[in-house]
């Protein structure tokens, strides 16, 4: 579905991605692993059209994806749930969710809200509360819910487990798997490599913006390189 071929991208004078190639196929969860500063978040922001592509091609459903235009990418159904969650702190939970479907007809909102509330019943209870007053875990649920409101055909999640208690992390990963089972492919950036590889069909390890290693989730979990560098074994 989504293919990045030989992508160079970065900010100003700094080149972050250097010849990055990766692919997400229909129905997959793909994990993107790497050390801090390897370019994982930049990869997602580049696909989302926030960071401009310097060279290389991104194709989506076998057609070139518009680059550098966040709204055009969103219209293709590629939704990013960014690192740090970026909840609108002084919008209510409901308004945060509605903001996620800004480009889509409003009459589809009620059905989508139902779906989001099925994944996250807590959000239904808190719908009138301000986003900024939620706990970290609740904010992460809200951020994923908001991305789902955009009717994603590809969902990109950046560090969904960052700073959350272990039982909440488990719950978030369970829901990521559930969303995927309903047919939404997921590109997942995680520092929690073990958790990510457990649910991922395939994964890529990138080092300073370049491909280092790729394989199925199980292969990567078993590889010495990954175990030493990212699993701390």
């Amino acid at each position, binding site marked *: 579905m989504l293919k990045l071929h030989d992508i160079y991208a970065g900010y100003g004078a700094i080149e972050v991605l250097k010849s990055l190639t990766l692919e997400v196929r229909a129905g997959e969860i793909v994990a993107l692993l790497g050390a801090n500063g390897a370019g994982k978040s930049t990869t997602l922001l580049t696909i989302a059209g926030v960071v401009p592509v310097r060279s290389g091609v991104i194709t989506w459903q076998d057609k070139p994806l518009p680059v550098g235009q966040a*709204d055009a990418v969103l219209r293709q159904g590629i939704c990013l749930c960014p690192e740090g969650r*970026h909840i*609108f702190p*002084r919008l209510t939970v409901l308004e945060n969710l509605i*903001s996620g479907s800004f480009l889509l007809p409003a009459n589809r909102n009620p059905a989508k809200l139902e779906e989001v509330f099925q994944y996250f019943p807590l959000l239904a209870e808190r719908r009138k509360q301000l986003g900024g007053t939620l706990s970290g875990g609740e904010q992460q649920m809200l951020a994923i819910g908001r991305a789902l409101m955009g009717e994603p055909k590809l969902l990109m999640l950046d560090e969904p487990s960052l700073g959350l208690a272990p039982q909440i992390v488990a719950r978030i990963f369970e829901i990521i798997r559930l969303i995927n089972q309903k047919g939404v492919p997921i590109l997942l950036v995680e520092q929690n490599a073990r958790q990510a590889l457990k649910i991922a069909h395939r994964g890529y390890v990138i080092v300073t913006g370049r491909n280092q290693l790729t394989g199925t989730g199980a292969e990567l979990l078993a590889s010495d390189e990954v175990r030493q560098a990212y699993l701390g074994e």
Partner: protein
Amino acid sequence: MTADSTSTLTEILVGGISRGAMYALVALGYTMVYGVLGMINFAHGEIFMIGMFACVYAIGAFSVAWGDHIMLNLTLGIMVAMIFSAAYGYANERIAYRRLRKAHVLAPLTSAIGISTFLQYFIFLTVSKDTVNFPRYYSDYLTNHHINLGSAEVTYLQLTILGLTLVIMTGLFYLINFTRLGIALRATAQDQLMASLVGIPVNRIIAFTFILGSALAAIAGVMFSMYNNVLVFDAGYRVGLKAFTAAILGGIGNIPGAVLGAMILGLTEALTTLNFGSQWDDPATFAVLMLVLMLRPRGLLGERVADKV
């Protein structure tokens, strides 16, 4: 208290609220732009002043074209003023502020002060060096007719100002709190990166904020010039400063706060004029501001700075 002094007091209060309402329409522009961009648009007073002139000249043209139909020409004049002010406000944002959005905070501020001076002298040199009178035929109709509130007299102009402001505030409150556009506006104010990630056209929302604030300032400008009967190229400076003060007083970035701050200023001025004479207006206004800021540095309804980050 005698019947006469109660009626005077009522009239003074109505006058204060009317002034407050006009300040509020201008203060909203300051506070909305601050809410979205975190900058003080010091040229906003000039947008108000341009609205005044646009209306007076438009009314002049209409009365030459098809005669003096008071309500028709006034209504059209206000619309022309809104269009002119909105165009200037939009141009300001495009030309003087947009490129500076990522610059140091002092850069757009300085640019705004420059635009303010530029627009004053632009009007001074191209339109009128002297004061211009609002066409009496129009303003007299509204200032000479009144209704009685008890024994106090409330002029049609005051009623118009209060009615118009009430309608606009209600509309604005609805727009910001209950529409998709309102959600987009608040989302843009809170997190521009995320707003663009959910597909909100951030640049257009910012432009819209300037256009809306400018149109409100134009309405205030027309009311103000009818109230005082004269308009002059530097009228925006004083009123702009007052409205800016009102926005700070209420808590800059907060919309109900701007209205509250403006009402307090309007009433302070009216009561000062009654008790000490109008030359004490400005000292009293700023004394109130300093007192409030000493007790509540964020303004009356301002949010904690920590919440903004």
